[in-house]
């Protein structure tokens, strides 16, 4: 296993003066490629904040952030957008998919937006991913008509579309019933095993966390476990 990413002395504060909230207070974290990690911690502990910083969607107040040897701390918006597109996949809890597009169109978005069009190759890969997620019969379904579990599986497929090194998932199963949640989790574990994709998954669910080989616990703005 090689080093994938590291953050050092990560500080994130929101607001200023009396309204200042220190969410992360000098957090250090390193991850290796191929890890399947759960991000745990009480509500408001900063899990989502950490994931958005790792996902380059937000700059830390201070501290350093490198991934794949690239210093992302002070990169430009455009550089981060390209980096994100190639190397990071996301699965969110809500509002994951573009509702006016089919499952396949959603899945191939990360490739199409880079290539400027939907190529045959991208479509083929998107279909493979959807089949792999057990959605062979939902490929050209409008996503608005999918169930919650199906939507999250489409989101996982899309997160994998550009074969990123890292997939960040913020409570991906928070909205699902136990059976669907475990189904999604099993698929993630399978991809991790077979492709070596690194996953960092925030969750409140012990059963979900148990599927992961590493547990990272945030508390008081620092890692506690």
């Amino acid at each position, binding site marked *: 296993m090689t080093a994938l990413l590291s953050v050092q002395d990560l500080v994130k504060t929101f607001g200023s003066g009396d309204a200042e909230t220190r969410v992360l207070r000098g957090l250090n974290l390193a991850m290796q490629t191929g890890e399947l990690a759960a991000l745990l911690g009480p509500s408001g502990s900063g899990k*989502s904040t950490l994931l*958005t910083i790792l*996902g380059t*969607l*937000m700059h830390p107040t201070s501290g350093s952030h490198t991934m794949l040897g690239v210093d992302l701390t002070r990169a430009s*918006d*455009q550089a981060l*957008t*390209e980096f*994100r*597109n*190639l190397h990071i996949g*996301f699965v*969110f*809890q*809500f*509002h*994951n*998919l*573009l*509702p*006016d*597009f089919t499952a396949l169109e959603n899945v191939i*978005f*990360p490739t*199409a*937006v*880079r*290539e*400027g*069009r*939907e190529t045959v190759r991208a479509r083929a890969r998107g279909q493979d991913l959807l089949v792999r997620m057990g959605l062979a019969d939902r490929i050209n379904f409008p996503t608005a008509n999918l169930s919650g579990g199906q939507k999250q599986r489409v989101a996982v497929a*899309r997160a994998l579309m*550009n074969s990123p090194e890292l997939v960040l998932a*913020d409570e991906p199963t928070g909205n699902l019933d136990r059976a669907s949640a475990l189904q999604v989790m099993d698929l993630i574990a399978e991809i991790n095993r077979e492709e070596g994709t690194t996953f960092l998954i925030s969750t409140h669910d012990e059963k979900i966390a148990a599927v992961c080989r590493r547990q990272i616990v945030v508390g008081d703005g620092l890692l506690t476990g």
Partner: protein
Amino acid sequence: MLYALKIAIRYLTASRAQTALLVFGVAIGVFIFIFMSALIGGLAEFIMARTAGDMSHITIQAEAVDPALVLPSDGRTVLLVQEASSQATAVLKDTPAFIPLIEALPGVIGTSQQINGSGFLTRGAQVTQVSINGLEPGRESVIANLASYITAGTASLGAGGVLLGKTLVEDMDLRLGQTVRLQSSGGVEALLTITGIYEMGSGGPDRRQAYVSLATARTLFKMPQGVTRVEIKLADLYAADALAPRIRALTGLDARSWTEQAAQLLEALRAQAQTGYILKAFALLTIIIGVASALLLSTYRRRPEIGIMRAMGAGRWFVTVVFVSQGALIGLMGGVFGAAAGYGVLLAFPARESFGPGQSGLPIDITQGAYGLAIILTTLGAIAASILPARAAARLDPVTAIGQ
């Protein structure tokens, strides 16, 4: 950016009713734009057709014979001024020399040599003062299109014939073929047959004008040679200002453009055109505000999606293009529909060829609808309108937009 365009189209088709309403609103604006263009253009055309169209575009008037000043050479201040006699009409003598020169000029459609004066028309005990207009036979319709105004008889002037206006004929209870007595201000009389009756639709000529042949006018005004006026018709009446000085230089005669007399008319037309511009600008402004607010609403509604796209690696530029494309498409569709509707509605109005006397209703000129301009301006306006919402969308913070 074909992919951004695809997403833009999908967004527009996803909220079909909203898009249709928006396009409809834009189309109404475009319709107003086109209707105003056709109306203002048609009005100008109409006014021109009624006034300038029948006017001489360049007129050469014989210069009035100035009262002669007689100054004795010995320096004593004896000043004799000869009264300008009303009988002594100014005459253009060498028309055979300069008429061909003028007719050879580019843009000149025709010339009309005339002898003008005043006189009295008598029938029985009735006497009416008229202005007498002697025209060259065969060239009666070169300046005012007399032939088109004839309601009885013919426009062609033969020896011994006279053309009278309908109002005059009715006032004096005359009929085609009757004989009338025409006496010039110089006292010469002629017995003439009414060979044609015209109706120009405007009071003056219909009531007070008598057209005779140039030969008859020569007798009436004792003018064996020369004419009192030469009128020139141009293909483009706006070329008169440029051509009049050329004719002056060419002939040494006092050639004057119609615009010198019609400054007020031109001023009015210009003011009318400006009113049209203002109305069209407001139509365009309404379109821009409508599109901008609709797209702003759409960016707000699609905030989470914009956040997702940004997280998936869509750059700010991509998001901008998605929303600007929506604006452009709305503008283009609204423009095309509005232009088509405008054309369809304008078809119901009488054609511009019928602009003339007796035409009623709005003088709308379908050929002046400015359809292409309306579509282009609307599309550009809609693009401009979408820039603000598109920038707002592109600058959205993905994290707050996704709202995790």
